[in-house]
């Protein structure tokens, strides 16, 4: 009899030792028929607030862009932009930041889409409603910690104890015939990964071998007859009356059990990884590709992955004086693009390109009007990338706004700006809620529409729960 994930979670705290689970886990390895029904979401969080304004740039209407960003030295030269061709849904041409060669390649292949002006919302909001507060607006706009939480929880009007990735995992856990956690992270345990039931497995990124991505030192192999090993596990079950001890034991019990599972995976190669040179995001996506490569051995049909890249809080030195296509932001976008492209190529070689969808999130976008230190400050709605074989690529998606298209009106003190007056900075009010963006992805993963409100509590307030960018 196999143990379901749900049973594991309910038992692991009480009468069920991790040793026993590990044995069961070992018994499951290699014992499962190959699952053809596999889908995975891969979340890439761009920490710090990515400047969407310098990532997706109007090509036809370059003058508007240049007027806002040239005086501060931030405008990327038109000649260097990676052209999109006329975007069908908008009717004009755009250009990607010149660092995004890998993603531009995928755009050309129809494997990459842009979600425009997406952000945290409590309910649909326009400039008048925002200025007059006739709608509820997200708590603590422009604050990193709050906006990160809201992107990851899809709840902008209160503090949520769980994230939408974790809550989606709560619903997909039963697809999997295994106790292996549906959420795996190479970047700790941010709230995105935490469900009401589910907890994420955090593992080390490459170049750590996959079979050592969790490791417990100092015991014989197998350790099952070692008294110290047995008592270490037993200690995780006692003193459950103390809240913090209970919480720590919960995390460690799962770690000890899954360390046993992951030991037998070896260290599969996932070309074209490793990247040369290695990068932080490349190492994370490489390890995620390895986990995907052993999905059948682990018994996984549905998975959610989380990784992140920091440094996007470019208040200062976002570009190099005089060569605005270089500098901090260009380097970050280059790292993201190269790692994402390699990851897509790896999924092609693994035969799962259409079963893995990768998407970006970030705290917020940055002010359309830069500051005086070659940088930009905190804003709101931004653009995000979605990548994969099931993405209806080469298109911009969203909800049409003030100008009738999904792309915002690029005018400080204009119809999409929170700010008014001559000092307005251009902080776009989102036309798409993170709820809608996430619900489209979750639906593709296999979440029933009836389950969406449990994952995205405010989804009913918005025009559609499916933005149409997935097959």
């Amino acid at each position, binding site marked *: 009899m196999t143990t379901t994930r749900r049973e594991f979670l309910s038992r692991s705290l009480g009468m069920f030792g991790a040793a026993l689970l590990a044995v069961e886990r070992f018994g499951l390895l290699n014992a499962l028929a190959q699952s053809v029904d596999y889908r995975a979401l891969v979340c890439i969080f761009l*920490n710090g607030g990515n400047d969407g304004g310098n990532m997706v740039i109007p090509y036809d209407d370059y003058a508007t862009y240049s007027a806002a960003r040239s005086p501060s030295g931030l405008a990327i030269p038109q000649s260097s932009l990676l052209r999109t061709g006329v975007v069908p849904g908008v009717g004009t041409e755009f250009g990607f930041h010149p660092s995004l060669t890998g993603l531009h390649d995928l755009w050309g292949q129809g494997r990459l889409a842009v979600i425009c002006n997406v952000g945290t919302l409590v309910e649909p909001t326009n400039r008048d409603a925002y200025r007059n507060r006739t709608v509820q607006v997200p708590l603590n706009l422009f604050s990193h910690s709050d906006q990160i939480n809201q992107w990851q929880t899809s709840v902008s009007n209160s503090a949520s104890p769980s994230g939408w990735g974790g809550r989606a995992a709560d619903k997909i856990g039963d697809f999997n015939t295994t106790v292996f956690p549906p959420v795996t992270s190479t970047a700790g345990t941010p709230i995105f990964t935490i469900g009401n039931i589910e907890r994420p497995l955090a593992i080390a990124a490459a170049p750590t071998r996959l079979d050592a991505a969790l490791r417990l030192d100092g015991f014989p192999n197998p350790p099952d007859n070692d008294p110290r090993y047995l008592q270490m596990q037993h200690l995780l079950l006692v003193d459950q009356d103390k809240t913090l001890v209970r919480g720590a034991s919960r995390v460690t019990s799962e770690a000890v059990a899954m360390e046993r599972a992951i030991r037998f995976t070896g260290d599969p190669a996932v070309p074209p990884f490793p990247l040369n040179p290695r990068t932080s995001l490349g190492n994370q996506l490489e390890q995620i590709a390895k986990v995907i490569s052993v999905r059948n051995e682990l018994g996984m049909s549905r998975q959610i992955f989380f990784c992140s890249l920091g440094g996007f809080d470019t208040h200062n030195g976002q570009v190099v004086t005089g060569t605005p296509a270089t500098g901090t932001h260009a380097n970050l976008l280059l790292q993201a693009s190269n790692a994402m492209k390699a990851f897509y190529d790896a999924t092609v070689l693994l035969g799962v390109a259409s079963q893995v969808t990768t998407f970006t999130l970030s705290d917020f976008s940055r002010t359309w009007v830069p500051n005086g230190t070659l940088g930009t400050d905190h804003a709101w709605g931004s653009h995000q990338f979605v990548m994969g074989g099931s993405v209806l690529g080469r298109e911009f998606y969203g909800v049409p706004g003030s100008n009738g298209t999904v792309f915002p009106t690029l005018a400080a003190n204009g119809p999409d700006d929170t700010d008014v007056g001559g000092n307005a900075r251009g902080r776009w009010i989102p036309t798409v809620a993170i709820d809608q963006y996430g619900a489209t992805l979750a639906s593709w993963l296999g979440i029933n529409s009836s389950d969406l409100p449990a994952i995205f509590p405010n989804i009913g307030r918005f025009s559609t729960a499916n933005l149409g960018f997935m097959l």
Partner: protein
Amino acid sequence: MKRDLLPVQSISFLFACLLVALSAIKPLRANAQPSLGANPSSSVPGGTVTAVWTDISSPTVVDWIGLYLPGTANTAYIDWIYVSCSKSRGNAEASGSCPFVLPASLVAGTYELRLLANDGYADLATSNAFTVTAGTVATLVASPANIFPGGTITAAWTGIAAPTSTDWIGLFQPSAADTAYIDWIYVSCSKSPGSAGASRSCPFVLPANLAPGAYNTRLFSNDGFTRLATSNPLTVSGGNGNLVRFLEQATFGPTQSLIAHVGQVGIEGYLDAQRTAPMMDYPVLEFWPQTRPATCTGDCQRDNYTYYQLQRHFFTNALYGQDQLRQRVAFALGQILVTSQVDVPLPSWMRTYQQLLYQSAFGNFRQLLYDVTVNPTMGRFLDMLNNRCQTRTPPNVNICRNGLNSQPNENYAREILQLFSIGTFLLNQDGTRQLDGSGNLIPTYDQTIVEEFSRVFTGWILAPALPGPPSIGGTVPNYRDPMRIRLDSQAREDYHDKGPKSLLNGFQLSGGQAQAVELGAAIDNIAFHSNVAPFISKQLIQHLVTSNPSPTYVERIASVFAANANSPTQIYDVVRAILLDPEARGDFIDPVTQPNYGKLREPVQFITNLLRAFNANSDGVLNSLNVGGSAIGSADMSQDVFNAPSVFSFYPPTARVPGENALGPQFGIFSSLTSLRRANFANRIIFSNIPAAPPNRPIGTSIDLSSWDPLASNADELIEALNQLLLHGPMSAEMRDSVKIAVESIPASNARLRVRTALYLIAASSQYQVQR
């Protein structure tokens, strides 16, 4: 009436038939008549009489006992219970006894109990009569129930019917005779008689030499041995528990010698001395050019372009420094007022900031906020450095003489408000959030205020360049001295926005003022906002003592913070109050009994506590460590010292304990990956060592367990000694048993392996990861 007979009866009937059938196979006592007794024969309202019955011939689960005035009908019961001893059904009982609690409102008089069958009114037996006299039963409650020798319990009594001034309270071992008291006080709360009191409470100081174990207190009448009441049991924990816990909170870990020292000078004596203990420094690092000269390689590169020396000295100071409290507070402050290597590449620059935190750890918070604001490292990290006013259209040199097209950078303005001082929502003084009339949270500031402050924070540049290192020459940026005001060739403050500004609480800067005056006024405006006291106090409590302080704890500390707002030793005073507070010391409520008490040790604390407990010999290379292919340094556990991912530090103060409705900030970096790395650090240091690997790990790190070997032959003694040192006493019986099984699986002849096994199991346990 609450006894609804009909439906119950029919079910009872079926049940009774079943019981009769079952009873047929049991031997029955022939012809015995049911009996019922009630004793004692006198009681009081609210008191208890015991009902004892025998020989119900056909017992049912709904046989019941009623309280009656003699002579009244069976339907006229005053109160009742089933033979289960409660109003819930239990088992059928042919014979048994139950405590029958008399109603507190019972009037004095004579009463009896009756035994009745099967939820009906057929009586099986009637008890002896008993009298109820007016008055109440005396009670005695001793709290906390878990305490250390020398601690103070509160003994609270009620209901002495005839109080005298010589009623007294004694301390006893539970099985001791009433004459064998250990210590005592009169109800005056001292050994001199004072006034009588029917209901009151006294502090009762336990003898300092009291042996660990179980005790109770008892209340006696009038200098005699007529016992009026007995308290709940008390558990007195091992001798140094309170001191060890204090040192976990106030230092980077208790050492054997420090425990003995604080035992002599006392907690307050130690705090007094810490205030003036000589300050450890970070190593003096030369200021080098921002871009590394090609000639600077090897040790030069390591020492001047990486954080190696800083991080190493952080650990050696923590392991061996005498100024433990200052360091611990500086480490906490450094996680609230954050700078990070992320945007501070040179260690000499970070040293300036960390020295400031050492120097300010016992100082005034407003002064600290000012000093941090003009510190060049912070200036660089959050972009106040070189921040300039915006040239207006048309230009107005009286507002902005030499500005830019763009507006001032908002970074420092936002984070000083959100993270360093007041937070995003208005707070009550107890740290809870204020609500408006509609029940909504009240923002402390809005985007406009951020923009106004961003204009205040304009016009600051680095102090004049310093000479470069002798081997290089030239000049290098000055990250040693506070930032200075930018002046043009005619000594005008040409980068500063001189326009009027509207700050917190409607405070106005009129404009045209000198840059330094504006900055001072703006820092005052922030530092004396009413949110600062609860916002900073609560975080300091969370860093030192417990993740979930009670609102009253926060309020007590916030009041110390506010009362000392102009004191040059404000932060010391606050920290002292935090550590002496009853909630930290357990005077009111024993922390051991509080499920949410304590904090997950952060990685640095986990490492230093373990090493200090066993007198480690260490070179301090503990931040980033890969030993035998295993990553076991604090950075590998997600606490990269001086290199937090952002100004939001290593973990958010709002992180929760996994699966629990309780705060646990440090759980933000406690994952499957890092929890095993903690265990692997314990494994490495306990079963072998971190070997020397020159030049960057000159001596490595090791602990000496030889003094523990003699304890190993007796597993109980070994475990208890580790319990006292690492868990300050309250190890549960289950944990003790578990460790003992592993220890006793090893022959006593292998003493060291026994010590290592016990120590590993404790050090790697969740019980040790959580500082309680």
